[in-house]
Each structure stands twice: as C-alpha cells, then as structure tokens.
C-alpha cells in the first residue's frame, strides 16, 4: 500500500509540467475504469460508467501538480534566479536541496545575511555548484522548473513524512477508491487535475468537459495540532477524514456536507469537520463552471503543508478512501 503511494510521490510534476505523473496515474487507474483520456492541458480524466438508467455524474478530483520554482535568469557567475510556482514557504525552503526535471540538483539559498522575516522570492537563488553562466546553461535553461527534494520516511504509528503529499495523497485516494468501486449506479469520473497550485486552472477546464452533477475534491488540509497553530485550525492528524465546510475559495454544498457526514456515521468511518479560514481547492471550479455542480471536499489532514517534510497519518488516508467509496456508492 505505502509502496504504491511512494511510487506516485517520486515522479516530479510541477504545475503545467505534469506529463510524467499523468502518464503514471493513467497506467495505474486504467484497469479499473471504462475510459481514460488526457485533455489539452494535461488533465487525466477517467470514467467508470454507472448502471442506472439515467446515471448522474460524480466527479472526484485530486490534483497531480506540486509547487516548485522556475528559472528566470542565469547570472554571469552561474547562480540561478528563480520565481516561485505556487505557495512556497521560503523559511522552510531556505538552504535545502532542489532537483530539476532532468535530474540536475542544486541548493536554494537566500542572499547572505537576509533576516528570515525579510525573505522574499527575489532574495533567493539556486547554487548549482558551477562557476560560470555557460556551465549553468549546460545544466538548466530559462523556463526550467525544479522542486524541493525529499524522500518518504515512516515516523511513529501510521505517520509518514515527505512530500508532495499535497496532493499525491489525494491521487492515491482516488486510485484506491477506483479499485473498490466496481458497480456504481452513477457515472464516476476520476479527474487528476493540473495546475491547482497556481489557481485551480486545470479543474476549471476539466469541470467544463465533465459537467458533473456532484463534485468532490480530495485534497489535503492543514492540521491544527501543532505548537502555536492558534485556535482557528480545527482539524487534527489521526482524527479521520476531514469533511470540508469551507475554505477561502468555496462554501461547500450544504446538503453534500451533511450527506457525507451521515454516510461516515452510518459506515462507522472516522471523520471530522473542516472549517478553513484560508486556502483553496479544486472544489471552487467544480461548483461554478459550466452551470455548476453540488461540490464538496474530503480532506486528508497534513502537518507542515508545502514544506519538504509534510506529515500525514495513513489511518486518515484509509478513512478518506472509505468515505470516498461510500459516497460514490450512495445515492447522493
């Protein structure tokens, strides 16, 4: 189980460069669905047809892309200036390793003596260990992207650390659900979306294509059981699948939220409510595009989101798979 997850976490896929991870997910889900295709932006859209006479369309959506950096300038001394792709935590990223699509490695560092409270994207550069612009250009070019390097490691209990759990863990939940949903009444669409981290752009296009009746995103949510998190983050690691009520991009469909809660209660699936005061997910696109749909989100709690050492609990993941399967099999 964990090895399948590690496989899809190892493949790099920074926003708009999701080709490889898309191909892998296509391969994984293919045996469990009726059709799978890739749209012009790279969204992978798979469908398992329902048995009902007039099936509804349920769209499950998890994003494949991850945050990273993109090269925008190479200095004469070979140092590489980068812009961020998505919400980089610069305090966490400082002095860590990055790896490019072609395997080239480097270290991302702030300009000397910069106080962490003054960290801005312009203050950072990547040291590739080369002396000249020409040497740097042999390794990378403007427009190339890189991500923070990390490996997935087991911690206490069922907890694992690594990246990008955001949102390969959602992709994993979808593939596991696909293995279990064998004879749905409704059409179940499994969408692995692109470009969520830069503004939910992939799901915007995919929602137009699928035109779901019900949309459920599976994504991560920050866990509030860390020192200094304050009182506003209610989700806890190990507390079960989080049923999103709102984040700053969406107010979830009221009926869908209460349906998900009833299903969890009925099937004895550990769950918790999620009210997030910031952040955004693909839920917002599914809710509004092309006539809109009843949309919600099942979230996997994660500590230290968007760093190279995110932490998740596989028991929560298990609960998310169960809730996703039960939701697709229920008449919502």
């Amino acid at each position, binding site marked *: 189980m964990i090895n399948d997850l590690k496989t899809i976490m190892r493949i790099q896929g920074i926003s708009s460069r999701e080709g490889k991870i898309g191909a892998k997910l296509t391969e994984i889900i293919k045996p469990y669905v009726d059709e799978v295709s890739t749209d012009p932006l790279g969204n992978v859209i798979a469908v398992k047809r329902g048995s009902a006479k007039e099936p509804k369309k349920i769209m499950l959506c998890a994003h494949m892309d991850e945050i990273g950096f993109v090269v925008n300038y190479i200095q004469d001394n070979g140092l590489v200036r980068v*812009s961020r792709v998505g919400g980089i935590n610069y305090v966490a990223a400082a002095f860590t390793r990055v790896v490019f699509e072609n395997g080239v490695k480097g270290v991302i560092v702030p300009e000397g003596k910069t106080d962490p409270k003054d960290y801005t994207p312009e203050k950072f550069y990547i040291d590739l260990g080369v002396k000249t612009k020409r040497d740097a250009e042999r390794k990378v070019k403007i427009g190339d992207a890189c991500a923070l390097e990390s490996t997935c490691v087991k911690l206490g209990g069922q907890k694992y650390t690594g990246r990008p759990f955001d949102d390969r863990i959602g992709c994993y939940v979808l593939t596991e659900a696909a293995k279990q949903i064998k004879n749905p009444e409704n059409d179940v669409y499994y969408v692995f979306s692109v470009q969520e981290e830069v503004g939910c752009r992939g799901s915007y296009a995919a929602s137009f294509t699928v035109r779901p009746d019900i949309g459920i995103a599976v994504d991560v949510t920050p866990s509030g059981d860390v020192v200094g998190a304050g009182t506003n983050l209610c989700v806890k690691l190990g507390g079960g699948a989080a049923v999103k009520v709102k984040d700053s991009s969406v107010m979830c469909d009221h009926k869908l939220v209460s349906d998900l809660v009833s299903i969890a209660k009925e099937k004895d699936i550990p769950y918790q409510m999620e009210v997030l005061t910031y952040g955004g997910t693909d839920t917002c696109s599914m809710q509004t595009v092309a006539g809109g749909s009843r949309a919600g989100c099942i979230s996997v709690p994660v500590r230290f989101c968007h760093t190279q050492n995110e932490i998740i609990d596989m028991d929560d993941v298990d609960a998310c798979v169960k809730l996703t399967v039960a939701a697709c099999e229920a008449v919502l």
Partner: protein
Amino acid sequence: MAKGLELLEKLCQAFGPTSCEYEVADIICAELEGKYDEHTVDFIGNHIFRIKGTSDKKLMFSAHMDEVGLMLSSIDENGYIYFQPVGGFDIKVLCGRKLFVGDYGKEKISGLIASKAIHQQSHEERGRATPIDRMYIDIGAKSKEDAEKYVSVGDYAVFDSDFVRFGDGMIKGKAIDDRLGCAVLCDIVNYIHENKIKPDFDLYFCFTVREEVGRSGASITANRIRPDMAIVLEATAVADIAGTPDYKRVAKTGSGPAVSYMDNGTSYLPEMTNFVMDLGKKHDIPCQLKQYVSGGNDAGHIHKASGGVKTAAISCPTRYIHSASCVFNEADYDSMYRLAREAALCPVNETPLK
C-alpha cells in the same frame, strides 16, 4: 513607415477605454473589409474574423482593443471633474497629463489632470504622489452647469499623446498595449489576402474587449469559438530600464518579441513555448523568452476556457507600459508580425496538435 505601423498609429490615436472599444473596432472593420470568410460581432463587442483553412483545426489569435483609461465619477460646483481609474494605473503617471474626455459618438474635448503647483504644496505634500481622490480633471469649464454641457458622469478620459518616432527606431505613443497586437493581426490578414494563401488552420482573428478589467472578452470569445490552439498577441512591460537589476528584467527592447513560459495568469505548456521559440529559430526571426514572472494577459482566461486550450503568448517589449508614453522598437514590431504570421500559416502537423 511600414503599412502596419501606419495602421498602428491610427489605432493608437483612437479613443477606446475598457468597454468603450467601438472606435477601435470601426478602424479594424474598415481595414479588413472584404478580406475574410466570416465576421461575427458578439453581444459584448468582441470582433471575430474567420479565414477558413484546409483542416478543421481551429487556431484562435487574440489581441485586445481596450486601453487603460479613466471614468468620470463626479463634477463639483467649480466644474472640476473627479474620476476613477479603469484598468491598472500607477497614479504617479497621471499628474499634469493632457487628456481626451468624452464617450463613443460624442465629440472629444481636451482636458488635463490638475496638480497643485509646488508653491501651494505643504511640506508634507512635496515629493509625494497626490492621492487619486485629490486629483481632478480640468476641462476649462466655468461651473458645474458649464461642464455638463460637454461631459457627463460615466464618460471616459484617455491620454492625449502623439505617436512619435525617435532615437534609433523607437516609437512612443499611448495604448500600444494592445493596439500593437491588433495591428499585427490586421497585417497577417492583409498578407493572407494579398497573397491569396489558403492556410492549413481554420483561423480566427479575435479583437477582444475588456482585457484591462476582468478579461471577460477573451473568456467569452474562447468559449464561443472552442479553439484547438490559441495565440495571444500582447505588449509586455520590459524593465530594461534604469534601477532594475538584471535578474528582474522581463525582456529587452530590440531583441525581438517576448515569448512567455509563465506569468501570473498562465503557466504555459512547455510544448507551446517551445513551438513558438522553435518557429523563430527556423525562420531566423529574433525572439526572446519573457524572463521575470509577472503580469498577465488574455491567455489566463483563454487557456482554461472550453475544456482547456493549448495557448501561447507573444508580446512586444514595451517600456513605460500603461502610461501616456509607451515606447517600443520598430524592429520588434516587424519580428513579432513575422513570428505570428509563421504560426498562422504553420501546417497543423508541425504544431503541438500533431
């Protein structure tokens, strides 16, 4: 001056702030008369000229007709007019500017943005930008009643700025963003018409409205056409100017049009960026990557419309963009025209759609 630049001068002089692009559209319609297979105007004012191709693959070209401007919001007892920006302004570029004030179909009158003489400024006011609610337009009226004979609340104002060549192939004017893109599109249509070319792509030349505020024009157009591929023609900030470190440079004037790989509205698919850059190489047309990640354009709405569209953006490097005096290089215009033309006439199987 090349024919395209003569047209560009006319387009730049036109009065066309956001949602009032009619004058620009009139010039474009007159220029393209009889040179297309189909012409559509939608409810919001987008103009779409289609030239049928030999394949069924649709390529959408887009340039926006609107320019940044001001909207009159109130007139006081002295006949001074207060206003709000329509589009993104650095308010520091406004003080003391000459304007044309009016609306489509109305006679435009001269005005200027008043600024307090230095003699009257308090110590605190000196050296500071005047806040926008303390600026006003003076049209030389005696009173509110007098002013209302010429203008009304809801009218627009745009910069009054000549189209002038200077220095080594440089041109300055207002509204280069994005009348330049419009002129390039007209040039391509003219070329296809004069040479009686039958393109492989089914070509849609779209002159959109409302880019500077909300980009709704491009979004509506892309959902209507449902293209297989789209190329946005724009003007981009350059930052090859004093006080900007090299690594924050966006592009360089005189080094050819800038091809985007990422901006704040779009993460372009690498295959699209490479397609355009390779076309430049193949046809020996100077072009450069748009370096610093900033800004955005119609591509942001087009690429995610209609289930997703493979989109590229080609921009003319333009200094002092969104001011009364935008500056670009004549040679860059020519390179941008040739690069976009080669893309328009490219066989479908030599593009990312193959």
